[in-house]
């Protein structure tokens, strides 16, 4: 390795300032990169960034969309963070979200009218159960057969999406839907009410905030949360203390699966109003980024979800306003996580300048 004019040096203690500053640095670096990307694409960068980040928020409807898209992102991320803290890597939230939508949507479709006023609670619980059941598969395989939950949960994403497609092409298809792969629209009593007229955000948003508070309580006030934290940061200490690793894996996957399932069902009985083939533009995957950008902390996750939601809105906005592909959202998402991971280096390390002897 050639001698560099600086070297990395471990800080005596992790920097608390950097832990909070890193996401902000990452967001700033993402903006700068966005500036460059737009300039390279021949769009006036300041204007393009305005269209991307400001224009979506110039109406009540726009703010509603911000909360609407932040809700599933935050729900999934809150669950994932519980696992990530304990070194349990559920990356299949997208699949658990899909199963939540299938189970909750199935109840809405077939029992919606019969359940009457009870419909919504039952549907939400069915969604949570569906997501948790889907996450139970990697939990069982990891605790029983030592199988990587990363790969299993990811494979289950594809299986879940195919299962949804199967149902929508077959038994659950709307007979009057012109052969579109979608179910018939849900009945009114099964639809989550919106927060305000003139926008689409539903009561799922305050529900998400409540769950964020609960998850904060779980990880900072309950012994179960503490056990999981220790298992993640010091597995040897956790083993010595007799903390049960299996229980952590189960807990992390069931909680994150349930949260993702709730996110899925809130989408289909919320803004979508029926089951259809595409119910999520990758919320379950973007939630991984949200969890990290939010420092695996509930408050941070809610803020990061709002930022990520804005990235989705910005993508749609530049597609309409500047004829750029909405896929620019995915690009920004990936960049944000890269920058965050790089900035995180300075939590534990610092650069020390040194004189290099010229050979």
């Amino acid at each position, binding site marked *: *390795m050639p001698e560099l004019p600086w070297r*990395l*040096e*471990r800080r005596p203690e992790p920097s608390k300032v950097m832990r909070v500053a890193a996401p902000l640095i990452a967001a700033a670096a993402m903006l700068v990169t966005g500036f460059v990307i737009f300039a390279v694409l021949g769009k006036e960068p300041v204007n393009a960034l305005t269209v991307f980040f400001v224009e979506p928020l110039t109406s009540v409807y726009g703010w509603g969309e911000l909360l609407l898209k932040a809700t599933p992102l935050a729900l999934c991320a809150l669950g994932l963070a519980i696992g990530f803290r304990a070194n349990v*890597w559920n*990356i299949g939230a997208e699949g658990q979200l899909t199963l939540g939508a299938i189970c909750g949507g199935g109840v809405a479709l077939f029992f919606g009218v019969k359940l009457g006023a009870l419909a919504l609670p039952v549907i939400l619980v069915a969604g949570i159960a569906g997501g948790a059941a889907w996450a139970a598969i990697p939990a069982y*395989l990891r605790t029983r*057969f*030592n*199988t*990587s939950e*990363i*790969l*299993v949960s*990811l*494979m*289950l*994403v*594809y*299986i879940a999406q*195919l*299962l949804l*497609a*199967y149902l929508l*092409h*077959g038994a659950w298809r709307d007979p009057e839907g012109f052969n579109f792969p979608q179910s018939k629209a849900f009945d009114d009593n099964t639809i989550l009410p919106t927060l305000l007229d003139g926008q689409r955000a539903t009561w799922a948003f305050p529900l998400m905030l409540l769950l964020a508070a609960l998850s904060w309580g779980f990880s900072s006030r309950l012994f179960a949360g503490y056990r999981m934290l220790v298992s993640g940061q010091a597995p040897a200490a956790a083993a010595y203390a007799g903390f049960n690793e299996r229980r952590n894996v189960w807990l992390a996957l069931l909680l994150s699966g349930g949260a993702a399932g709730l996110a899925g069902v809130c989408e289909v009985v919320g803004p979508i109003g029926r089951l259809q083939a595409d119910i999520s533009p*990758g919320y379950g*995957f*973007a939630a*991984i*980024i949200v969890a*990290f950008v939010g420092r695996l902390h509930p408050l941070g996750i809610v803020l990061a979800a709002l930022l990520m939601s804005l990235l989705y809105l910005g993508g749609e906005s530049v597609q309409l306003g500047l004829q750029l*592909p909405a*896929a*620019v*959202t*995915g*690009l*920004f*998402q*990936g*960049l944000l*996580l*890269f920058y965050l*991971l*790089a900035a*995180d*280096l300075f939590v534990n*390390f610092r650069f020390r300048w040194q004189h290099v002897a010229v050979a």
Partner: protein
Amino acid sequence: MNAEFLIAIITGTVVAATPLIYAALGELVAERSGVLNLGVEGMMLVGALAAFAVSVSTGSLVLGYLAAVCAGMLMALIFAVLTVSLQTNQVATGLALTLFGLGLSAFMGRKFLGLPIAGIHALPLPGLRDIPIAGPLLFRFDPAVYGSILLYFIIDRVLTRTRIGLILRAVGESPSIAHALGQPVIQTRYLAVLFGGATSGIAGAYLSTAMTPMWVEGLSAGRGWIALALVVFATWKPLRVLLGAYLFGGVTILQLHAQGFGLSVPSEILSMLPYVATIVVLVVICRDSKTIRLNQPASLGKSFHPDV
């Protein structure tokens, strides 16, 4: 069932296995150096787009494959800088690489949606191709298929019979001891990760120019992840990567031909097969934790910093 149909199934299996072989062998090399790169899917997608875009624009598949190799290596370079030099968490960074690759390829690929491409041509080996049965079965593939077998022989040989391979394995088993013995841990890991990027790029190129000669978003459909599972299935041994890839190729092709056998299973259910098979195979291999402990590179997934 006639011989021609059987030959079609077997050759189809080989073709379906080829991208998995490239991606999994590259990942195997990276993992043997101790670096777990979960970004295979992202590198494949970017490689697939690069190959497609360059092939369509220049009309040259060779340039297309070169572009795919460069694109895959550039993606791997980002990963290596972050994980090897800046010591970020390998799992998180790999996920980021996949998400970034998905976004980048979808974004850049807009112009190329729906364009036709000539695709890679078979390269029947002269003389051998006319042998009855064995000719069509073994000697009428495209160059990338022969290349994948060659790559297996090279990697197997280098890992077990050369000094470079020994250093690579030493770095993967115990970076601190390798470092103390004066071996270049950081460079080795960089090269291994870049190699993985190059082969993932080729795997992607094969998808977009040979298997399905076109570009669509998310073209790889989880094959990068299946390649990762294959490395575990292979217990980090190249020969078993080869066998595993053919097994998966077979599952994929049988699923395509299932309707031909008169099975009336809905296509969505059949499409689940490769993913279900991946899970089943992982369970079978990982059930015995001793096998994994004995074969998995000891430092897999752990950062290395010379001062620490």
